[in-house]
């Protein structure tokens, strides 16, 4: 869900931690600036439509709601609630991101009223049968990658930095991610994902960025194309709301059973 803030978000502490000694790395500087410019978003909610297309162009849809809370000492917290299709209605996915190590994740199964802790090592696995994997939708903390500045390039007429993100976690499904970052706004316009064999696996593009609260950029459309299967997933966001008054309590696993 939140590749959304992918790169766009992260806690203040993480920035302070890395901003001291290691600045010789231009890739890290750029990635840090991306996160720094998005700091202070606090909490958000949004609605999302996920459109899955197979290689024959047939499509199916899901609708979800997202709630997120910016982390301070720890990583961000996020909650995804499924509205359609009918058989997963009311199911909820809660994630407490960790800056290092595995995230804590719980799933709420409404028919059983059961909250289940799930293993989060399946980063490379698909989220809801889509082309987005769990690691793509997880909140992106600066500590999760090593960075390498590659070049300057124009993308869609916009001057971009191209930065390589190398996942630190061995369980990542990617060898590297190549990211195109708008030089003036410090927002990500495109990411290429390379599999463990270093072949191009997927390309994610962001469209229709809008500015909220006079500071935070959010894209309306995320389009992930899987080059190896020909499948595609589009995420369409709407109703972004900032400062909705969510607190830590709303991201407590026991609150999952209250979700409607």
């Amino acid at each position, binding site marked *: 869900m939140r590749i959304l803030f992918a790169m766009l978000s992260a806690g203040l502490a993480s920035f302070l931690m890395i901003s001291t000694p290691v600045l010789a790395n231009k890739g890290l500087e750029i990635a840090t600036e991306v996160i720094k410019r998005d700091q202070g978003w606090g909490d958000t909610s949004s609605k999302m439509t996920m459109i899955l297309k197979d290689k024959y162009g047939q499509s199916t849809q899901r609708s979800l709601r997202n709630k997120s809370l910016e982390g301070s000492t720890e990583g961000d917290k996020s909650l995804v609630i499924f509205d359609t299709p*009918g058989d997963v*209605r009311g199911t909820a996915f809660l994630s407490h991101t960790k800056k290092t190590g*595995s995230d804590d994740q719980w799933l709420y199964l409404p028919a059983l009223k059961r909250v289940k*802790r799930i293993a989060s090592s399946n980063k490379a*696995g698909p989220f809801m049968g889509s082309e987005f994997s769990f690691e793509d939708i997880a909140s992106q903390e600066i500590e999760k990658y090593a960075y390498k500045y590659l070049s300057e390039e124009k993308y869609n007429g916009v001057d971009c930095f191209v930065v390589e993100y190398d996942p630190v976690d061995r369980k990542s499904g990617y060898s590297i991610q190549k990211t195109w970052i708008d030089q003036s706004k410090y927002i990500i316009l495109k990411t290429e994902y390379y599999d463990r064999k270093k072949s191009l696996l997927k390309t994610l593009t962001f469209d229709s960025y809008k500015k909220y609260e006079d500071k935070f950029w959010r894209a309306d459309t995320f389009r992930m194309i899987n080059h190896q299967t020909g499948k595609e997933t589009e995420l369409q966001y709407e109703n972004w709301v900032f400062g909705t008054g969510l607190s830590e309590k709303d991201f*407590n696993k026991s609150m999952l059973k209250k979700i409607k």
Partner: protein
Amino acid sequence: MNIIYWLLVSICMMLSQSAVADGNLNTKLIADFRLYPNSNAGTIDSGQSLELNIDAYKDFGATRAVLELVARFDDQDSGRRILDARQAYISSEIGAFEIYVGNRQEFWGKAESKNIVDVVNQQDGAADQGGAGKLGAPSLSVERYTEYGDLQVWYMPEFRELTFNDSNAHPSGQLLIKPARYQRSEGSNADDLAFRFSSVVDEWDLAGSLFYGTARNPILSVVDVGTALEPYYPKQQSLGLEAQYTGDATLLKWESLHGQQDEKSLFAAVAGLEYTLYGLLDQVWDLGMLAEAQHDERPQAAAKRIYVAGLRLTLNDSKDTSLLLLTSQDEDWDQSLISFEASRRINSWSSIELGAKFFDAQTPASAFGALDDDDTISIKLNTFF
């Protein structure tokens, strides 16, 4: 008490009418077809039921009214027919506390094959729906969330009896069910109390609970010269312990119950291991392997020790196809159960589930021996509105 709860149900129903206007109403229709390939003479060899689930809620500031109704019609088995408010409660935040009044459905436990610490609700046993088939628990409950963990206190003034299938339906021992007996003199009006504290410590999800009340599971005795079953509900005072360790791909699970039942000491435990292989065969498929050992000294248990092994295949496709194969075996290699479940979405408003269960036992008088003619093959069509 009954009048008060049905009054609450009526209030919730009225409130939920406005939930329709707010779009806070969801409906599910389940058409269930069952075949009993091994049925004895004099019992039904097939059955079908239609179940309607209505789920509505309405918020009034910090107060919420919730209604979840289940209405099931079965063509042959009156035991499966039911109209129940699985949930019909009003909840409110008062200070740091959440207070609930009315029927609720709650889940406690960590294991997959059996949840011995899950004491709040009675099972809708006749529905044969596993953990989803519960009867609403009339209750007053208070919950408090703290940074150290979550506390629940439950007061349950009315006991609900386990539901049974008709004697010519399945599963059943082909015996009539006599009126229940209770150890506690107040019978079904005896009050039950329960507490639970649950917490997350890094990779560990932990919980401890206390229960004082009437056991949910009756002890069944064959009476009237072998023609009837008499359920007996003993008193239970117990401590429940739960733990789950969540590793990279490994889950370790523990549930245990310690205390007294029917004035005798009570001990039961379930220990489990689950390991998942992600990205099987270079596909996006996941294969979960689970093993659980059940130890249960209560007379209600089918056997003192049962070992369960299972495979869960998740295809992670756009139709969310999944398959689950489970085998249960008692320690004497006498009784066994093989079950299979598969589910797949058809489209955005419907899904299909297939199920099969095969019981086997060397000793006809054993628990599974009595279920020998209850092998079941089922197809369920779910429609969502």
